[in-house]
């Protein structure tokens, strides 16, 4: 658990180096159209870019520890405030996606394992390979075209904060979260199937069946419960995948979230924002996986920390 701190420190170093060692002068970008050389030099000094790399890192690290991610070149505001503004949309999208994915994928995986080798199993495996292969944006366009434009059921774009009412909020998120969930469903269903399959081969299942327990109880109470750890693990690891998907999905559906912010910041060479967002996403990833590790205790009483 303490291992997460060095990991975060390393992430910070990597993010810092990644953006500082690349070509492109942040000062020139910040100065904009009409700046001359002296103005650029002045800005460079103001940003501390003329100091040694290690000093720059020291200042940057001190700032982030105190919760200051700097000021965005492009949006002209604090990066922390910017992330704050964009957080709700992304968090809502991600939560809905995970809820949707887990509630679909786990039952599908259990069913596939139960009828191992049957037509349903093969269909699910086929679907999951397809889910890995279709680009997110192609799927998004198909959904927009069919559901929003042809059928007119849901809005084509945008995001409504939950403060403007729950239904508008949810309606705007349905298509994006389905789009995003497909690859996640593919992943979780596969792992659920494999884990349940393995559990079904164990002795205690045979015992349970021999005792004459109903099949549903065998599946859920025994097999699924014992398969919980790999499933939870893959949900945690999948957060990385989800974040990648968020970047694309938010761009297609014009959702003003953190993924969209990443793309805008990258296109505008907005170094502080890129650093801030990547760092933020990495922290989320590490923390979620820490929580996943902690949840093992809940799923398996034998594990203790």
């Amino acid at each position: 658990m303490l291992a997460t701190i060095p990991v975060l420190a390393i992430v910070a170093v990597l993010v810092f180096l990644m953006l500082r060692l690349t070509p492109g002068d942040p000062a020139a970008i910040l100065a904009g159209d009409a700046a001359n050389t002296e103005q650029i030099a002045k800005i460079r000094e103001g940003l501390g870019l003329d100091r040694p790399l290690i000093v720059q890192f020291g200042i940057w690290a001190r700032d982030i520890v105190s919760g200051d991610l700097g000021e965005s070149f492009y949006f002209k505001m604090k990066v922390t405030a910017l992330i704050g503004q964009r957080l709700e949309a992304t968090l809502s999208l991600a939560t809905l996606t995970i809820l949707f994915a887990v509630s679909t994928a786990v039952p599908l995986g259990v069913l596939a394992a139960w009828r191992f080798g049957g037509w349903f199993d093969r269909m699910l495996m086929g679907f999951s390979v397809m889910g890995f292969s279709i680009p997110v944006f192609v799927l998004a366009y198909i959904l927009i075209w069919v559901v929003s434009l042809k059928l007119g059921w849901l809005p084509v774009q945008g995001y409504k904060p939950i403060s403007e009412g729950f239904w508008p909020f949810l309606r705007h998120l349905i298509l994006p979260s389905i789009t995003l969930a497909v690859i996640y469903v593919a992943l979780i269903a596969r792992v659920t199937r494999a884990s349940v399959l393995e559990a079904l081969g164990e002795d205690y299942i045979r015992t349970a069946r021999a005792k004459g327990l109903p099949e549903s109880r065998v599946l859920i109470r025994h097999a699924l419960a014992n398969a919980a750890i790999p499933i939870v693990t893959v949900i945690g690891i999948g957060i990385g995948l989800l974040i990648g998907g968020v970047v694309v999905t938010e761009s297609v559906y014009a959702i003003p979230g953190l993924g969209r912010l990443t793309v805008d910041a990258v296109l505008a060479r907005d170094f502080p924002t890129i650093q801030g967002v990547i760092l933020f996403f990495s922290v989320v990833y590490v923390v979620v996986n820490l929580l996943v590790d902690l949840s093992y205790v809940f799923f398996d009483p034998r594990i203790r920390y």
Partner: protein
Amino acid sequence: MKARRIAAAFSLAALASLLGPNAIAQAQSADRVLRVVPHSNLAILDPIWTTAYMSRNHGYMIYDTLFGTDEKAQVKPQMVEEWSANADKRLWTFKLRKGLEFHDGKPVTSEDVVASIARWGKRDAMGSALMTFVDRMDTPAPDTFRIFLREPCGFLLEALGKPSSNVLFIMPKRMADTDAFKQIEEHIGSGPYVFKRDEFKPGDKSVYLKNTKYVPRKEPASGSTGGKNVYVDRVEWNLALRDAQAQVNALQKGEVDILEALAFDHYESVKKDTTLQIPATAPAGLQYMARFNHLHKPFDNAKVRQAVLAAFSQQPFLQAQVGVKELYRVCPSMFTCGTPYGSPFGSEIQSKSNMKKAQELVKASGYDGTPIVIMKPTDLASIQKLPDVAAQLLRQAGFKVDLQAMDWQTLVGRRAKKDAPEKGGWHMFLTAWQAHDIWNPIANAALDARGEQSGWFGWGKDDKLVELRNQFMREVDDAKKKKLADAIQARAFEVGTHVPLGEYVQPVAARKNISGFFVSNGNLYWNLKKN
């Protein structure tokens, strides 16, 4: 299998329950809110600090101006009630309208005005040109200010009423006293809308509320002049919706009301849609332009630049970039056809040439085979095809070309570099200007031929051009001004400062229930009604 069927039934039920309330929710919030998709993102809120058109449009929402320019390019008073000049045209006196008030409730005084002029004069190209004439300004009364000139100036009112970036917006003195090279922190104006700061999220949305205390002029709205009547309660700029197809989808579904920049590709389909309209708001349009870097080989040689002028016939650029015939026109003028100085005078090298001529000129020019570095912005749909056309035409004329793709931000950073093209500099970039920013020799930055001192990238140098331009600045007689403008244009074609690549109109798309559009240079959101 049972579980699956249940799941399917559940999701259908959930879907059905969502479809019901939606129509109602949309109907109640929509009526007095104008939902606009601007042409770009709004990031900088100081319209004096930057020339970005988005910041200018934001400025028009919340600030008012002393003068405006109407659709016929005539300067008309806006905040000014009456004005006069003394006999030798060196002392100008202006009196403000009654009832002008900033959003914080304080009245607009002449002190605010003078401070605003001073700050603008440090940033704007025309403003700083004006300041070289201005001796001093003073405020004999709270509603009166005076400008003392060293010598008569031919463009005083044109500068004060300048309709496009940077517009002379009037701010409270405490804001206008901000260092001109720092951005303002407050956003208080006296304009027709009040900026809703707490709802501003760059990259997401910007919100403006009706300024109920605003007193509009009586004249009808025209250009940036006339009555700024507001008939909606709230204007929302959607800054998140950037994809061209998604914008049109949203407009067709009624999720937004106005698209500031309809993509040319969608012009025909929007025109056919009976629920939508394409109002004529900016017929003067924009001009495409290719700019040389005069500092480096081979474009330090006027003969090579002339060869390019001969190769760049306007039609291929317009056809590729715009495509819709009714939206573009070939125009060999550097000052926009249909405006006072627009004429083909002296443009023969470009307008009467063909590729054969260009190939001969390239051979005769002594071009040494240096690959031409063209910078291509990949994220600006309105100009991103031009560099490809330029590359193809240059290759056909006998040039070697190195087409380098980058985003606009990088391009903007790189075009400021004077380094040699092989060391991170450049040879050529292409851009678009709104008519009002290039329609006279002072405003047109590409005609500033003071070499490395000149205000715009490319740094063309020609003493004769500088001299003609100086004469123009001092000239007060309209007929003589016109003659001088012709001479400037002919000289510019002769030395090849840049290449005008034709003009186009950026169509605006709106839903049918929006009315009250008027002709102006840009995107102004008063006078509009939503039924």
